[in-house]
Structures are given as structure tokens and as C-alpha cells.
């Protein structure tokens, strides 16, 4: 119990001390900043409260774009993984090419999507779709193919057909990887949605809010928006983690004791 308490009190204490130092203006003194350049926490909170309805509206725009794009991108990525599993020889090479998409900077994608789509929402969804495909394709492919030894042989000895092998062996085996990809993708999707709003023609959304407020030199509003974006990111992540726990109850990765026991013992 005390151990648990320490795990909470230490980081909490550090966080409070950090905010206090910030509030008292020690960072300003240290970094030679004027108060208007770096607003103190109380000012950010005041702004947050004052602008809450508008900020929530902007948050809704960004989150809905991020979610739709993430679902589209993850679905495409999963289909790619399934196709790659069906055609192993050509599929794996295609997967490597897809994973190169990972390296394309979001900032270069958003002006392209600006050309392709008329509205800010479509553009945002386009960017998020592209950046979330690769993680799902790679993780799902790994789950569909890294089967436990002999399980495929067992299925073959039962003369199981392709669809049976897929739905009873490969798909359940891929679920943990799918959730790993979703957890990676939800953060990526939020980042991509916000960054694409910096350069889109849209007049709403968290990214637009941050940029617009900074342009008007309203630093506290910018920080308030960043706070909301962070809270939204953590919340969405926790929602996915919660669904993962419910769906994967049967899986060993959700049970620390089993994982500990299943760890191979090295001999010699």
C-alpha cells in the first residue's frame, strides 16, 4: 500500500512543484522572458474557463476528423495486412513499401490534401487516413502471421479450409496487434489532425485555434488550446485501452501473472 501511495505522491508532488515554480515566475527569471510571452498557469486556467464553449466546439471538430480518418486508415491498413497474408511472396514486399509511408512528414501531406479536397474536414480526414495506415498494416500482419508453433500444422491436419484458419486462428491471434496499432494511431491521428489544421483553409478546430490565437498574440489562449488537445489525446487513448481490456480479457497479455509464468526459463 505504501508503495502504491509513493507511486502517486512522488509524481504528483513533482507536478505541483513544477506548476508552482512556473506560477511564481521563476522560469521567466531564469529564461529571461516577459510575462506576456509565457503565461502563468492561473492565467491559462482563467482563459480556459472563459473560452470553454468555443474551445470544446473546436475540440469536437478536430476529434471527429481524427476519429473518422483513423477508422478509415486503420481499416485500409488491416485490409492490406490480410491481402499480404493471402499472397505472402508479394504481400510482404508491398508491406515494406507501405511502411515507407510512415516516413513521409505530415507537414508535406497536408498541402497535398489541400489540393485534393475542398473542405478543411475532408482534408484533415485525408491526412489522418494516410498516416494511420502503415502502423495498422504492420502490426496486423505480424499478428496474422506470427502464429504459435505447430498451430498451423494442427489446422492443416484437421483439413481446415482457408476461411476457417483465418477466422479461428489468424484473426484472434492478430487482435492484440490490432489494439497496439489503434493505440499508436489515436495519438498519431490527433497530431496529424492538429498539424493539418495549421495549414488548412479551415476556420475551426484546435490547430486553427492555436495558430490563430498565437497570431493575435493571445498566448494564454494558445496554451489553453494545447491543454485541451492534450486532455483529449489522453482521454481517447484511455478509451481505446479500456476497450482493449474488455475485448482481450481472455488474452495472456492482459494478465501480468500469466505473462510472468509463461516467460521461458533459460537453461544452461
Amino acid at each position, binding site marked *: 500500500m505504501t508503495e502504491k501511495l*509513493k*507511486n502517486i505522491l*512522488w*509524481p504528483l508532488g*513533482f*507536478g505541483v512543484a513544477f506548476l508552482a515554480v512556473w506560477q511564481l515566475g521563476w522560469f521567466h527569471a531564469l529564461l529571461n*522572458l516577459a510575462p506576456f*510571452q*509565457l503565461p502563468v498557469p492561473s492565467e491559462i486556467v482563467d482563459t480556459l474557463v472563459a473560452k470553454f464553449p468555443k474551445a470544446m466546439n473546436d475540440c469536437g471538430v478536430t476529434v471527429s476528423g481524427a476519429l473518422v480518418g483513423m477508422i478509415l486508415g486503420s481499416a485500409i491498413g488491416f485490409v492490406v495486412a490480410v491481402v499480404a497474408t493471402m499472397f505472402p*511472396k*508479394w504481400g*510482404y*514486399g*508491398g508491406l*515494406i*513499401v507501405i*511502411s*515507407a509511408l*510512415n*516516413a*513521409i*512528414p*505530415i*507537414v*508535406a501531406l497536408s*498541402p*497535398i490534401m489541400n*489540393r*485534393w479536397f475542398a473542405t478543411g474536414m475532408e482534408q484533415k480526414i485525408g491526412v489522418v487516413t494516410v498516416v494511420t495506415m*502503415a*502502423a495498422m498494416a*504492420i*502490426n496486423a500482419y505480424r499478428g496474422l502471421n506470427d502464429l504459435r508453433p505447430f498451430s498451423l500444422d494442427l489446422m492443416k491436419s484437421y483439413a481446415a479450409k482457408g476461411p476457417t484458419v483465418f477466422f479461428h486462428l489468424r484473426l484472434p491471434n492478430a487482435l492484440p496487434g490490432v489494439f497496439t496499432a489503434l493505440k*499508436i494511431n489515436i*495519438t*498519431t491521428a*490527433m*497530431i496529424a489532425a*492538429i*498539424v493539418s489544421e*495549421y*495549414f488548412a483553409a479551415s476556420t475551426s478546430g*484546435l*490547430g486553427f485555434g*492555436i*495558430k490563430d490565437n*498565437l497570431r493575435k498574440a493571445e*498566448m494564454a489562449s*494558445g*496554451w489553453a488550446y*494545447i491543454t485541451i*488537445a*492534450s486532455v483529449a*489525446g*489522453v482521454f481517447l*487513448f*484511455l478509451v481505446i485501452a479500456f476497450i482493449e481490456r474488455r475485448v482481450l480479457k481472455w488474452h495472456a497479455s492482459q494478465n501480468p501473472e500469466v505473462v510472468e509464468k509463461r516467460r521461458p526459463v*533459460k537453461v544452461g
Partner: protein
Amino acid sequence: MKTNVWGVGLVWIVALALAWEWGAQLLAVGFHDPMAASKLPYLHSVVSTMFNNADSLFEAASVTFTQATIGFALGAAIGYVLAVLMSVSRTIERIAFPYLIISQMIPVLGLAPIIFNLVRDMNASRILIAAYITFFPVAANTLGGFRSVDREKRQLLDSYAAGLPTVYAKLMIPFSVPHLFAGLKIAAPLSVTASILVDMLGSKNGIGVKLLYALYGGNMDIFWASVVTSALMGVLSFLIVLVAEKILVPWQDTANQGGAR
């Protein structure tokens, strides 16, 4: 098997290039889209623009890439040191670990304009933001590496009464290197992205500035050439880390764990 994978990859790249050409033709000739040249220009015209403007593109790209590299190295070093400190001291781990976890869930790149506004120096903010974004995956992955050191090996060294520096030099640090690289592979393209983002927020030079000016000036050839250049920079950063890993950790099978993010 190895050559086979490369061959298949090559076929895919050629097929994608052909699909691009065909798509561009379809858009321009098939649909008579007046915006075809800006939506999807012919790949060969993009490539020829890149060759014709190789000097200016390379200059802009190298400014951005250099700052990204400095920030990347700085962030990786700080992240590694924090991971070492966290593995040595339970208290430091207690303080920093929750923040490390939360930081992976928040849209860190959203902070870029705020930092840029605060620092007001494009080189410094490029380095700062690239370092900041590199820091988290490196620290988290390295700590994961320290934690997964076999208990028996640690106990063996303890039973030899080996001091902390010896334990780290002989066991912990070598063991953590593959995990460090897993973090570096995630961080490398991100640091390039961060650097380009700072370009586009209002710097004076760099590939992002070139991209933005071409976009606003309606110069679609240069725009597309800049987009492809920045994509290549991202791929290049990943490949550099991959090659470094092959040299430093030759025993690690990299094919199985690349591009986790």
C-alpha cells in the same frame, strides 16, 4: 531470401511509379481536370524538376536536415541519460515515468508553434522541437530495455560484488542498445517532421519554406519537388538509423521490428 525481398520491393516501387504516371494521365487526359498539374503532376516531370533545381533543393533540405539531426542527437542523449537515471534510482523513476507515459498520448507536435513563438529563433526552435520529440520515444524504449535485462545475469554480477559502473558497462548498456535503436527508429522521421514544421511556421530558409512559398506562389512543380524531397528526407533519416544499427548491433534482426510507429 534477402535478395528476394529486395527484388519484390523493387517491383513494388516500379509498379507504384507506373500507377502514379497512369493516375496523373487519367486525371489530366481522362477527366480533363484543370487542376491536374497541382493535384497529381506526372512523376517524370516532378523528377525532372528535382534534377533541374537540385542545388537549391539540396541547400534548403540540408539546412532543415542538419537542425533536425542536432536536435535528434540532443534529444536522444537526454532521453538515454534519463532512462539510465530512472533505472538507477527508484525515486526518479517514480517521478518521471507517469509523465513519460502521458507524454506518449498527447499531441506533442501541437506545441511547435508555441515554442516557436516563445524562442523566436528558427534554428534554436528547430533544434528544441526536434530534441523534444525525440526525447520521449528514446527514453521510454531504453527504459524498457533496462527493465527487460535478465534477472539472473544481474544477480550473477551482483554476486561477483560488481559495482554499479561495472554492471552498467558490462550488462545494462550493451543490453539496452537494441531497445535504444527501436526508439531512435521511431524518433528519426519525427524529428525531420518537427524541423520541417518549424520551417513552415515562419522561418527564413529550409525545405518547408521552399514548399510554402511554392504553394502560395502557385509554382506547382517546385511545390511537388519539395514535397517529394521532404518525404525522401524522412525515409533517409530512417535508413541512416537502420544502417547505424546494422553496424553497431549486428546480432539484432532488424527486419522484424522496424517501423513500429
